């Protein structure tokens, strides 16, 4: 039962006193009791229920009517490729598919090697089946050419094959996989660029958001950890410098940092280096993220008891080994929720590329989609799919974080 009403247990102490007094942990069992306890427990509650039901019904009806009747989704359907790729030359799209296949195979291997299996309890299974049907229907409506279905089929097959191999190889694959994941970004960048490939200036759409978020997450993590350790260093020069850097970055808007990357970074680097704009912006995203990662890791470090440091020193571990083997594993474990929360917001922040001159990310593509005469004024229909794409990524990341938290037993020790 707690599966169906997870809020109930957690909120029991804040519910009506009637609920608390009769049975603190028990949740009403029959639907009738449940409705009475949760919707009509008193006059005030009943009035609220009726008012909220009216409001929610009105909103839901308006929304559904608009989505299925009024709205003209062709603006999204026609521009789907722009949403995904921006100005990426269509003749070179195979490079994106190749990168996708590489990443999907890696993901399959990791999934298989982790030894996890899907949870087939009825509630989960039904939920998953409904999600799959809706997803497939949506894709069927969206993708009309058969070619793309073959490409998606190959991706699915690669994932499945990766899972099988990973399961067979088991934990032996852990270290090679770690190396592969670290190498994955450079590999993808190469696949996109080598042998007459596509310049970074033309990368766009959802692809651009993913690439920028990816590099910023991976690069900012080690830098952030170093900054956090530096901030807690007993060497005044190092800790003061770390604090100054962290507070400066955290005190200003990301957009001003991006402007700095756009206008000023070329000037402060040695002349003639010619770093592409996108790389400069990626550097700024990384710098921005590192300052926030540092603060999160600092929180984790503060949670490690002093005794752990003393024990490590008593064992004669040098500082580097002490951090790597004793302190950081404990500190980082407790930062998982905050860290993933930060990475989610970093992913959302990649949409700021839309207001930097010359980049066509997912948001900019959506904003430009109704430019043609045919779709003029279809801004809602153009912007909403972009919002949904951002939402799906962010929401699934937060769900994944919750599962991870439970698995490492956070908040239970």
């Amino acid at each position, binding site marked *: 039962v707690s599966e169906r009403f997870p*809020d109930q247990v*957690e*909120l029991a*102490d*804040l*519910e*009506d*006193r009637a*609920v608390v007094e009769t049975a603190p942990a028990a949740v009403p069992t029959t639907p009738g009791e449940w409705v009475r306890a*949760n*919707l009509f427990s008193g006059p005030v*509650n009943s009035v*609220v*229920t009726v008012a*909220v*039901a009216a*409001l*929610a019904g009105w909103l839901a009806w308006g929304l559904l009517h608009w989505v299925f009747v009024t709205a003209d989704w062709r603006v999204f359907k026609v521009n789907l490729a722009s949403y995904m790729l921006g100005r990426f030359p269509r003749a070179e799209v195979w490079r994106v598919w190749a990168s996708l296949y590489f990443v999907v195979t890696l993901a399959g291997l990791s999934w298989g090697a982790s030894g996890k299996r899907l949870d087939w309890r009825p509630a989960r299974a039904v939920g998953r089946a409904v999600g799959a049907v809706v997803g497939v229907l949506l894709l069927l409506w969206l993708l009309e050419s058969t070619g793309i279905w073959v490409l998606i089929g190959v991706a699915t097959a690669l994932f499945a094959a990766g899972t099988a191999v990973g399961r067979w190889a088991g934990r032996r694959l852990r270290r090679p996989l770690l190396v592969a994941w670290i190498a994955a970004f450079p590999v993808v960048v190469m696949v996109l660029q080598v042998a007459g490939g596509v310049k970074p200036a033309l990368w766009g759409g959802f692809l651009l958001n993913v690439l920028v978020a990816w590099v910023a997450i991976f690069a900012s993590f080690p830098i952030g950890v170093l900054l956090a350790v530096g901030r807690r260093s007993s*060497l*005044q*020069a*190092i800790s003061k*410098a770390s604090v100054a850097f962290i507070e*400066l970055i955290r*005190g*200003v*808007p*990301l*957009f*001003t940092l991006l*402007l700095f990357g756009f*206008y*000023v970074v*070329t*000037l*402060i*680097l*040695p*002349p003639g280096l010619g770093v592409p704009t996108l790389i400069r912006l990626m550097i700024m995203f990384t710098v921005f993220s590192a300052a926030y990662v540092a603060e999160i890791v600092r929180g984790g470090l503060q949670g490690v008891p002093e005794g752990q440091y003393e024990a490590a020193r008593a064992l004669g571990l040098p500082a580097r080994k002490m951090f790597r083997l004793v302190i950081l594993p404990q500190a980082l474990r407790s930062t998982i929720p905050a860290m993933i929360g930060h990475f*989610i917001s970093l992913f*959302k*922040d990649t*949409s*700021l590329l*839309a*207001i930097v001159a010359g980049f066509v990310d997912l*948001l900019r593509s*959506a*904003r430009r989609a109704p430019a043609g005469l045919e779709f003029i*004024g279809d*801004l*809602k229909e153009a*912007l909403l799919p*972009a*919002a949904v794409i*951002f*939402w799906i990524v*962010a*929401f699934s990341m*937060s769900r994944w974080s919750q599962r991870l938290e439970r698995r490492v037993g956070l908040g239970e020790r």
Partner: protein
Amino acid sequence: MAARPEAVPVRPPLWRNVRFRRVVGQVLFVLVVLAVLREMYLNLEFGVRRQGIDLSFDFLRTQAGFPLKESVLSYSPADSTLRAFQAGVVNTLVVAGPGILLATVLGLVVGVARLSPNWLLRKLAQVYVEAVRNTPVLLQIIFWYSAVILTLPVIGGGSLAGVAFLSNRGAAVPWPVTGPGAGLWALVLLGALLVAGAVWRARTALNERTGRPHHRVLWSVWVFVGISGVGYVLLGGPVSIDAPELAGRRYTGGVQVSGEYAAVLLGLVVYTAAFIAEIVRGSILAVPKGQKEAAEALGLSPFQQLRFVVLPQALRIAIPPVNSQYLNLTKNSSLALAVAYPDVVAVGNTIINQKGRAFQVLALLMGTFLAASLFISVVMNVLNLLVTRRGTLR
């Protein structure tokens, strides 16, 4: 065992001495940082000179030469660049201040709704939070602007009960205007507030002495309303409400809010309120269960439990994270550029495009935001201090 001269403790070599190593290490670190910074500065100076400009701030005194779409500060293109920048700062404050206020109110309401015993209300609040939190704020601002505000009727079309007007150019709402005697009435209001406070104290003291119900809220409110009302009548109505009216292609009277401003404010408020709601919910849940049970055991009513036991403790937990949400809102106001509202970053961007000098303008911008962050943090720390002290003393 004869003492051999070699046994006299030999000082370890200098490079083995921990204190020496710490000092040298730090000196080296500082030198490296300074060298890198100097190299960057030299590169910057060289690069800037090649573009035919310099690193001085003199350009702030030259004529700005570009118009601003709107400005609270009086401004014209003939004014100095510095004045344009100041106008941008004020425009940012005009968004951030009300934004913080409104986001707090909405966040509180939604946060409490998230904990309501009513299932439907709880779920509605949850849908709002999950939908808003997981999409970019920039997208939301653009959505409010181009998909909502720009699709409103043209000027003269929409009206709310004939007193406020909505159009695709913004909103016009009634606003109080001050007449003669307004300053005097402000003094009367202040006096009324002081008297009401005294009455509050007196009623509380009476209740503590005799145990009779104090009804201090009722008493103070009536005293305040009475005094200020009498003052208002005696001074002959020093403040009146000015309603907007349609005059040709524009509204006169009341206060007019541009569509760009409304979009930025709406976007920031709706987005930040979702985060504040989660903080409110988390802080209330974080108050130990025993506190509420103890309050209940003392016979406090549900309202009293909330007012005197749960909320004061929840407030203490909530202040630091709410502070960082206020900072986020202020920083996110820089996204106003997307809908061409002339906040300080948009003005800075225009100055860069007009006059070059990106480095100086960005230094100014960052300095402005650091100052704003510092100011908000100081205010919130003072508040935090007040709240925690009150909690521990009583």
